[in-house]
């Protein structure tokens, strides 16, 4: 008899916990609140309530009632929303969005968009900081010493090494470079500005490994004349400009090595849009 009573209480706790979990998922994931059978659940709560003696069980009971009340509020809001002009069937809208061209979406959005007008201003404090920064800056001549000038060293990694390091696939390096060049040209035409692409926009990828690989290939594109780097030091911006025709580097022109850091930290920053 005692055992059966305990078993019944255990079952009751489980049922209340299940009700709480269902309510929570409706609250947190914006699911249809009418998925919850309020009446049925209240009956369950009522059925077990007389059995609860210890504070833990009574708290569980109160929590269940609290969550059921929240879902009832959501149901009320749901009905209100459906009766307003803002109600749209999400599935219908989703389908429309998926079928609509990007350009059409932009044309529609600019019709209903009224961007804010604001003027940025520099504060006295920022000016002081800028002067301090300027005063502590080393002359250009000294700063450039950090980046030794010299000829590009292109022969340090063999193709076999690159394949074994999984940097290259088992494909001729020139073929790989050619494909990458075509990709750069395509990106520059479709998404670039004035035929050039931001360095990080082009090399950035979903994984750090892939990003390094793309940076590596890009360095070869620049070295072999498939593209040029455009650096704006003041704005701290770097662009890649694809050459339309292959322009081999002439020996008379002095080549400059530009060290570009592709650290995991930079990649994280770029992922967050801070770079």
């Amino acid at each position, binding site marked *: 008899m005692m055992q059966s009573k305990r078993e019944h209480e255990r079952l009751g706790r489980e049922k209340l916990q299940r009700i709480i979990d269902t309510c929570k998922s409706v609250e*947190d*994931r*914006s699911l249809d609140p009418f998925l919850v059978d309020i009446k049925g659940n209240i009956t369950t709560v009522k059925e077990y309530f007389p059995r609860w003696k210890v504070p833990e069980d009574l708290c569980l009971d109160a929590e269940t009632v609290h969550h059921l009340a929240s879902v009832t509020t959501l149901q009320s*809001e*749901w009905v209100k*929303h459906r009766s307003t*002009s*803002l109600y*749209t*069937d*999400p599935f*219908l*809208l*989703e389908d*429309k*969005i*998926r*079928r*609509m*061209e*990007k*350009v*059409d*979406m*932009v*044309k*529609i*959005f*600019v*019709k*209903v*968009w*009224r*961007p*804010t*007008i*604001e*003027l*940025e*201003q520099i504060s006295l404090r920022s000016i002081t900081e800028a002067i301090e920064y300027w005063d502590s800056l080393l002359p250009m001549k000294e700063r450039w010493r950090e980046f030794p000038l010299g000829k590009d060293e292109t022969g340090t990694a063999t193709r076999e090494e690159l394949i074994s390091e999984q940097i290259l696939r088992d494909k001729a390096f020139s073929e790989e470079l050619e494909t990458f060049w075509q990709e750069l040209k395509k990106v520059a035409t479709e*998404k670039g500005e004035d035929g050039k692409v931001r360095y990080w926009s082009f090399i*950035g*990828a*979903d994984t750090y490994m892939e990003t390094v690989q793309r940076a590596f290939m890009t360095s070869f594109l620049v070295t072999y004349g498939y593209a040029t780097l455009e650096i704006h030091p003041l704005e701290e911006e770097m662009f890649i400009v694809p050459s339309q025709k292959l322009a081999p580097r002439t020996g008379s022109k002095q080549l400059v090595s530009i060290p570009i850091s592709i650290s995991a930290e930079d990649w994280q920053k770029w*992922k*967050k*849009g801070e770079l």
Partner: protein
Amino acid sequence: MSRRKAYYAGRLKRAAHLLFYKRHRKPGIKGWELRKALGSDYLKVLKLLDDYLRMLDLQVKTVFEEEKPAEKPSQDQLDKARFLITLRGEITPKEARMIGWRVDDIAGLAIAIAYIVSKRGKAPRKEVEDILRDKLPGWRVGLNVDRYIRYGYLAQDENEQLYLEWRTRAEVDQNALVDLILSHEKT
């Protein structure tokens, strides 16, 4: 110039300075700040400024903390509301690009807002990213959503739910956006 006119001319200039210059992290200024700087009849001053800005295709916009009150807003609601200047008329896609928005960014923002509106103002980030992935390159999706959050168009809670933020309420006619999308016919 009469004394009254001179009074309002001075207030008008002060209101323009307060509204145009970004003083805080967010653009615009709160109602209580305007009341303090312009006096209790600041709404009248703003009305005059709004009329003046009409010829420049600009307007004074009021963004309430919660939803726009159905009746006349109370003093408290006005105190907490944000007042800012927005464009009055439409812009072209070309102009939008000139102010620093790429086509991809605008399309993504439109999709995210429309989708969240249809979901009663709240949608899981994952769902929004899924629908964006249809139109934007995969690696840009997360970055763009973060950017919309940073600019104040969207907000995200600890359960990764996305909401519409103050900037959307200030700048976008949500009703019209959804209507236009639904009534769009492929040409």
